[in-house]
């Protein structure tokens, strides 16, 4: 590209710059008040629109699609009993995925596949302190399923892998929702739906983990995306 100048703000807004050009332009933006003002203006211009009431049900449609996409993604990334898909995960996200790969590998090894662990442990270490905890979740009196969880804590981050078996099939939009709790206050920590053979996996990461969680629980929620539990707890454990 020809030397970057202020006219490129138009291409920047249109999203037509290449990745490098975009980074280059963002450098320009740091020092150019003219371009900063134009970018600022785009935070106001949409208010020229006449208000239109959103159609009924749009929120539910959009959010369920967004979270379903996530489930699809998760299914393709889910913990398999081979190291290959776990490594594939690393390519998807730019952050270092080793902690979860190791957690997942250890976890798989708990279930009797030493090969995955062996294979992955040959890979380079991340450095830094890492704490690993494996947990058996206890079902409530009537629930027939079982689940294990692995929690990896490294510096500020927390990663959680859950693997469940003998799950009851779900109806409609139901999901199994995982929660981390501290003193009874839950945050959602991943969700899954069981496969045809009653198995389910989930992976969740918290990059900035400041809480000292005391409980992990899985509830049966009527739909995905609930901010707080509506369904009953089917599996749980202290951490």
């Amino acid at each position, binding site marked *: 590209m020809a030397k970057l100048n202020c006219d490129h703000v138009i291409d920047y807004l249109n999203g037509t710059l290449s990745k490098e050009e975009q980074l280059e332009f963002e450098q320009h933006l740091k020092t150019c008040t003219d371009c900063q003002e134009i970018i600022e203006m785009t935070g106001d211009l949409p208010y020229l629109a006449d208000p239109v009431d959103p159609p009924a049900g749009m929120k539910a449609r959009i*959010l369920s699609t967004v979270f379903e996409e996530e489930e699809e993604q998760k299914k393709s990334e889910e913990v398999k009993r081979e190291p290959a898909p776990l490594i594939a995960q690393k390519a998807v996200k730019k952050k270092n995925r080793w902690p979860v790969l190791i957690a997942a590998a250890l976890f798989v090894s708990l279930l009797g596949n030493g090969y995955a662990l062996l294979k992955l442990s040959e890979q380079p270490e991340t450095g830094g302190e890492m704490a690993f905890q494996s947990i058996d979740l206890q079902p409530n009196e009537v629930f027939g399923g079982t689940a294990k969880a692995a929690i990896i804590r490294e510096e500020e981050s927390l990663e959680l892998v859950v693997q469940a078996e003998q799950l009851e099939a779900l109806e409609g939009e139901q999901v199994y929702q995982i929660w981390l709790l501290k003193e009874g206050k839950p945050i959602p920590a991943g969700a899954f739906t069981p496969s045809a053979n009653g198995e389910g996996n989930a992976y969740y990461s918290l990059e900035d983990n400041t809480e000292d969680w005391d409980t992990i629980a899985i509830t049966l929620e009527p739909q995905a995306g609930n901010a707080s539990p509506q369904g009953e707890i089917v599996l749980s454990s202290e951490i």
Partner: protein
Amino acid sequence: MEKSSDFVLYERVRNKDKEALEQLYDRYEKILFSFLVKMTEDRDLAEEALQEVFIKVWRGVGEYDESKGKFTSWLFTMSRNAAIDLIRKKKKPSVALEEAGELVSPASSVEETAEWQEKKEQIQLAVKDLSAEQQKMVQLFYFKGYTHEKISELCEVPLGTVKSRIRLALKKLKGTLHDMQERGDSPWRN
């Protein structure tokens, strides 16, 4: 304060907090939908574009950080591009100027929030300071997503000057708005 809480919310979204995404959705649903309807003139297309936006936000596509300016600038720009993509894919691009609508439309019946109303009035005032050609360019470029070629043709300006003319129109708009705020025409802050 709104700005920092947007950022905090976005950070939570980046950590896959569904509740945070829902809050972000609630906060911007109406302005985004209205903006997208203005752009696409099609409620279904607007919904589709809005869905694209939230899929991208959730997946962390085109990640936001404060070096990219205000959070709303980033969110609105992403929405605008989602709408332009859909318009180009699904709709025959309209060439006639009459179909492009006006930058400022007559008052609507749906009630605006006080904040929205206030912002709108100010921007409308600032728009009046632009020349007719500048208003047309902002409408064609910003809200209609027309190509530079089409804008050059419709506004009868040389292709090579389209970008800088749009830029100058936007800059003038911002300058006028800024002056109005300095003079304290309204308590609007952002």
